[in-house]
C-alpha cells in the first residue's frame, strides 16, 4: 500500500455502508472502506459475488441502502471503463467523439470544452490509437474500442480510474499488455486504479490492495496478507498465476 503512505486523506470513505440493489437485502454486512489516492485496488472474487455492485456503490452510481459515503477529495472525478465492448452501431460517432464524451459529466449546461479535443487526441496517442480519431467508432476492433474507452475514462482528468473486468475477452499476453498500458497511464496521471476482476493474473505484481468478495463477505488487504490468512485459498495460488 505504498500509495496511501504519503497521502494525508483518502479520496472517499464508506461508513457502515450497506450495499445492494434492493432495500432490506444488502449483499454484505455493514462496510467501512477507504479508497486512497494513487493506489491500485483490485476488486476480486468469483462471478456473482457482488464486485460490480460494490464498485457502483463506491463511485456513487448506486445509492447506498444504509450508512454513508463521504467524499474527502473536493470535486472527485471517476473515469469508468465498462466491461462490454459492443455498442449500437447506428450511432454516427467517430472515435474522437466517443473519447470526448468523457468530459460531458463535467460540462455546465450549454458548455463546450475547447481543450477536450486536444486532450482526447493526446490520450488516443497514449493508448496507441493516434491517427484513428476520425475513424468511425463502430469500425474499431474490440481491443481498439477498449483502448478508446480507457482514453474516454481519462479525458476529464479523473482521480480514480475504474475498469470493470477489462481482461475478460483477452488472452494472457493481451491481459499483460493491458495491465502495462494502465500502469503507464497511472504513472502519468497519478490516478488511483480500481480494477474489477474474477482472476488476478498479471495484476499480482501491480496491485496495492485487494477487496475480495465471496459468499456475502468482503475482506480488504494486501495480496500477501490475504494469502497468508488463507482468504484467497482456492482462488489464487502464489507463483503459478493460476486462478479459478
Amino acid at each position, binding site marked *: 500500500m505504498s500509495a496511501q503512505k504519503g497521502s494525508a486523506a483518502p479520496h472517499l470513505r464508506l461508513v457502515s455502508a450497506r450495499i445492494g440493489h434492493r432495500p432490506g437485502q444488502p449483499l454484505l454486512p455493514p462496510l467501512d472502506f477507504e479508497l486512497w489516492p494513487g493506489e491500485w485496488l483490485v476488486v476480486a472474487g468469483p462471478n456473482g459475488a457482488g464486485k460490480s455492485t460494490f464498485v*457502483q456503490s463506491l*463511485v*456513487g*452510481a448506486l445509492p447506498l441502502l444504509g450508512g454513508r459515503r463521504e467524499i474527502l477529495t473536493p470535486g472527485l*472525478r*471517476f*473515469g*469508468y*471503463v*465498462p466491461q*462490454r465492448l459492443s*455498442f*449500437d452501431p*447506428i*450511432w*454516427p*460517432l*467517430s472515435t474522437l*467523439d*466517443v473519447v*470526448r*464524451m*468523457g*468530459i*460531458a*459529466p*463535467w*460540462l455546465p*449546461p*450549454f458548455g*463546450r470544452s475547447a481543450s477536450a479535443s486536444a486532450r482526447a487526441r493526446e490520450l488516443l496517442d497514449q493508448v496507441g490509437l493516434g491517427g484513428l480519431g476520425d475513424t*468511425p467508432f463502430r469500425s474499431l476492433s474490440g481491443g481498439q474500442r477498449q483502448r478508446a*474507452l480507457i482514453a*474516454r*475514462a481519462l479525458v*476529464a482528468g*479523473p482521480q480514480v480510474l*475504474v475498469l470493470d473486468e477489462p481482461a475478460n475477452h483477452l488472452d494472457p499476453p493481451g491481459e499483460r499488455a493491458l495491465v502495462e498500458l494502465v500502469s503507464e497511464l497511472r504513472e502519468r496521471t497519478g490516478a488511483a486504479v480500481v480494477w474489477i476482476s474474477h482472476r488476478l493474473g498479471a495484476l499480482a505484481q501491480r496491485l496495492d490492495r485487494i477487496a475480495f468478495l465471496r459468499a456475502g463477505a468482503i475482506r480488504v488487504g494486501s495480496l500477501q496478507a490475504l494469502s497468508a490468512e488463507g482468504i484467497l485459498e482456492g482462488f489464487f495460488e502464489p507463483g503459478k498465476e493460476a486462478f479459478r
Partner: protein
Amino acid sequence: MSEVSFWEAAFLWRDPLIAASLGAVLCALCGVFVVLRRSAFVSAAVAQASSLGVVLALLAPHVIGSEIPPLAAGVVVGAASAGLFALSGRDARIGVDASIALAYVLAGAASLVLGTLLPHEYERVHSLLFGDAVAAPIEEIVALALCLLLAVVFFAALFPRLVFASFDPEAAGAMGIRVRRLDAALYFVLGLSIAVATRALGALTVFALTVIPASGGLLAGRRFSGVIAWAVASALVAAAGGYYLSFVWSLPTGATIVLALGATLLLGLAVGRLRR
C-alpha cells in the same frame, strides 16, 4: 388540379405552412434521438395516450362534475406517458420498446372502452386530437413555436450528456450523470413535442416526421452534426414540398408530406451510397 393558383391562395396556406414547418423541424430534432434510441414507435404511443387524456377530460364533467380542458389533458397525458417510458425502460425485466408497446395498446383499448360512454363525441375527440393539416389556428402555431424553443434549448443545453447517457448509460452513470433523471426529461420533451405536433399535423404525419428524416440523415451522413442538419433540412423541404403538391394536385396533405419524406429517404440512401 386547383383552379386558384398556389400563390394567389397564399392567405389559405400561409398559416398551415408555418405550422407544418415548425412541426417538421420540431419532430426532426426529436426524431434523431427517437431513432438512435430505437424508440421509433414512441410517436404512435404518445398519440394513443393523448387520445386517452382527451377522452378522460370529456368524461370529467359526468364523473367529477367539473370541466377539464381536453386539449391540455391530451398533451399532459401524452407527455407524461413518454416520461414513464424512460422510467420503465431502464428496468432490466422490460425494455423501452415493450413499455412503448404497452402504452400504445393499453391507452388505445382504454380510449375505445371509455369512448363508448361518449357516443356522440367521436368526431370531437378525433378533431381535438388530430386537428386539420389544412387549417392552423394561431394558438397551434404558438404552441408549436414554444415547443420548438423548449426542444432547442433542451438539446443545446444538455447535448453532450444526452449523447453519452443514450450511447452508454452504464458508463455515463458511473461517471456522474444522473441517467434516469436525464432519460425522464428527454422523454418528457419528446412526449410534449409529439403531442402538440400531433394536434397540429395529425398522427401519421408526426410519426413519419419523427422517423424518416433522422433515418435519412443516418443513411446519408457520417457525423452527428450532419445527421441533424440532414434531418431538419429534409423535414422542412418535405413539409413545404408536400404541402405545395397537395395543394396543386388536390391530394391529402398529411399523406403527401409523408410521401415527400419517403422521397428524401431515398435521396439519403443514394447520397450515402455515393459517399462510400
